[in-house]
């Protein structure tokens, strides 16, 4: 049984390792070693440096803690909201379901980019990078639910027609009791949704840098490091650019491997 929890322990170890690296005396994610920019691995910089000469290992570690915490929290929020809304729509009267799905569709189509621009302009220019990061993830969570909610809705409809629900309803189970029975059954649907949201949010945060939201310099952002991948000139100069994406995949695989029934 122990072996099944291995992914959890690995994730914890990863987080601990990252915290250790960040907390190490002399480690700074912001210090620019301008004589050594975009170098490969060396004793001084085990994972090389970025374009401004900042230590990549420290930056990736800090980003792992920061972006991942943000993205995980936002994904959890979004998935929870989607589960609630989707299940509500599936089990509520048809008029309500109609309305909820209509709002869902409208939500999916609207250009939310502009809302993010408005959020930025409402935020003071001096808002600290951490502050702006927290708000960004919150907004992302608030905008991410509709696609997921639709999947839950159709999954919920399927459940509603299943024999055991019929049975449960026939034997007098109502409302909240029913939902409590249904939610665990939606888990196989929710887990992949949650996992898909994590990298999506990590990258969305980075893309929002274009609007002045997201994690500002000099705080490291995982998404920002992933976006380095779309610059072929950088890829040409050092292979270490792939480091953050490799780590992200590892984390996602570990998340996926966590046993759901445990």
């Amino acid at each position, binding site marked *: 049984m122990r072996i099944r929890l291995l992914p959890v322990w690995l994730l914890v170890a990863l987080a601990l390792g990252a915290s250790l690296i960040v907390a190490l005396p002399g480690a700074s994610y*912001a*210090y*620019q070693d*301008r004589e050594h*920019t975009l170098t490969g691995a060396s004793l001084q910089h085990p994972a090389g440096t970025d*374009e*401004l*000469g900042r230590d990549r290992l420290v930056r990736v570690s800090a980003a792992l803690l920061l972006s991942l915490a943000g993205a995980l929290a936002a994904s959890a929020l979004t998935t929870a909201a989607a589960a609630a809304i989707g299940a509500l729509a599936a089990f509520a009267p048809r008029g309500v379901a109609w309305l909820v799905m209509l709002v869902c569709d409208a939500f999916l189509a609207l250009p939310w980019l502009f809302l993010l*621009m408005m959020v*930025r*302009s409402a935020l003071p*220019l*001096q*808002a*600290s*990078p951490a502050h702006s990061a927290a708000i960004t993830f919150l907004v992302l969570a608030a905008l991410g639910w509709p696609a997921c909610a639709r999947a839950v809705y159709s999954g919920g409809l399927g459940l509603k027609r299943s024999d055991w629900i019929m049975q449960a309803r026939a034997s007098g189970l109502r409302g909240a009791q029913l939902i409590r029975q249904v939610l665990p059954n939606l888990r196989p649907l929710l887990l992949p949704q949650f996992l898909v949201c994590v990298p999506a949010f990590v990258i969305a945060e980075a893309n929002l*840098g*274009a*609007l*002045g939201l997201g994690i*500002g*310099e*000099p705080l490291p952002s995982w998404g920002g490091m992933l976006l380095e991948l*779309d*610059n*072929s*000139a*950088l890829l*040409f*100069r050092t292979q270490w650019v792939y480091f953050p994406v490799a780590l992200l995949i590892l984390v996602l695989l570990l998340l996926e491997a966590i046993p759901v029934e445990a």
Partner: protein
Amino acid sequence: MRRGRVLAGFLLAILTAMAAKYCLAQAAMRLPGELAWNIGYDPKTFDPAKVDDIDSETVRYLTGGVLLRFNRLTQKVEPQLAESWNVSPDGKTITFRLRAGLKFSDGSALTSRDAAWSIQRVLLLGDSAPVSAEFVAPDGVHVDAPDARTVIVHLPQRVVEIGKVFDEIAIEPAGRLSEGRVTSGPFYVANYLRSQYVRLRRNPYYELRDADGSVLPRASGVLLDIVENPEEQIRLFLRGDSDVIDRLSPEYYEMLRQRNPGTVRDLGPSLNTEQMWFNQSPASPLPAWEKAWFRNQAFRVAVSQAIHRDDIARVVYLGHATPAYSFISPANTAWYNRNLAPPRTDVAAARAGLLRAGFRLQGAQLVDADGHPVRFSILTNAGNDERLKMATLIQQDLSAVGMQVNVVTLDFPALIERLMHTQDYEACLLGLENVDADPNEMMNIWLSSSPNHQWSPSEKTPATAWEAEIDKEMNLQATSRSDAVRKAAVDRVQQIVADEEPFIYLVYPNVLVAVSTRLEGAQPAVLEPELWWNVEDLHLRGTR
């Protein structure tokens, strides 16, 4: 069973591979003898009089025949459709003599009537023809065509460097608007597929000849592929589907230098500058103490001294930029002030200057005389990698003198709204592109009454003595007939700006271009259009 699975896996692999091959993006096919390069967006207009964006400008440059052409390499005005031209001693009358036997690309004759009509049209269009503003007082200009080959332009007042203005006025057939289909320049617009390409064909009636009498332009046409993504531009260049790339970024320059040595050229500092400035506008919603810092000359000088421009040039531009202290680039040999004595990078001096100005350190944090911590944000436009990096370097440089800087990137419209309308920003980092070497072009930036006077737009009266002096010197250079007086005035403005630092100049980015080894006749120049200013001479090896 097992065999089925293996088969399925195999099928999957083949399917993926085939998909990869099949889905290759297609570029427009190039015709024999045709040149090809990329423009970023659709030209907004094909009407040469209404051009106001760089891509329309490219089309106008390649298709429009002009009376005078400003040679981008020698930086001298040369007659083109005109055989000769002269300006009267008072500078108010310009007389052109057209070449004999000129024709448009459809074979119809080009006379002085067409030339006069084209100039008049630009003047009549007023604000929708940006060139007209260069006549200073376009309403008072009269154009005559006394005979078939003479055009006379009467100006109400003298205009500095009037010859260059005619470089931007394409001569079109009188009364027949053709949107570039009938031209008097080397090419005409043959085909335009929105958001895909613009195809230009050689004007068969083009009059100009080479020194040895051969037909110009040498290329049979130009294919302008509309490609916005620089990655894609590089790919097309490497595949031989485009012949030149202008405005290469330093990173791509280095990549091409390694992959295809011999195709890239660093032409040295451009006329453009990258600078940072503080918001000094009295109308801004900033707290009073911040306004006081930004209006304090000692504060601005200290910031300038704390910034390591060498690091910016080396780290951000990979060495392809030159540290800047003035708005005129050393590439602009005629106007650059060689005796300029700007405050150089010196962190100790910056600290001392701040102390003298009443600032003091509280731990690592700088505070002003009233105890307000010195904290501000630097705004720059999103999507510009170099500017974000510069701002991040400056962030660390300024933290060395105790200032806490927040870097904020905004998309352009949101940025412009803050700069031009609400004035709600503290400091801004942007670049200025100078198309023209003559400082008269920059009048609107230096006159304190101008809305483009960035650090404090539209001042009713100059806020400071030095701004009043800049106004005076700039007006002097705009009206004086003596080149020496103009040069002295501009030199003085450069020194004032270096002393007062309303703009803290950072670097002059170098002009980086790529030219295919198959292309002959290219003579890249620092002035725009760097690569195709001599398009008549460009041709692919082996084609004439």
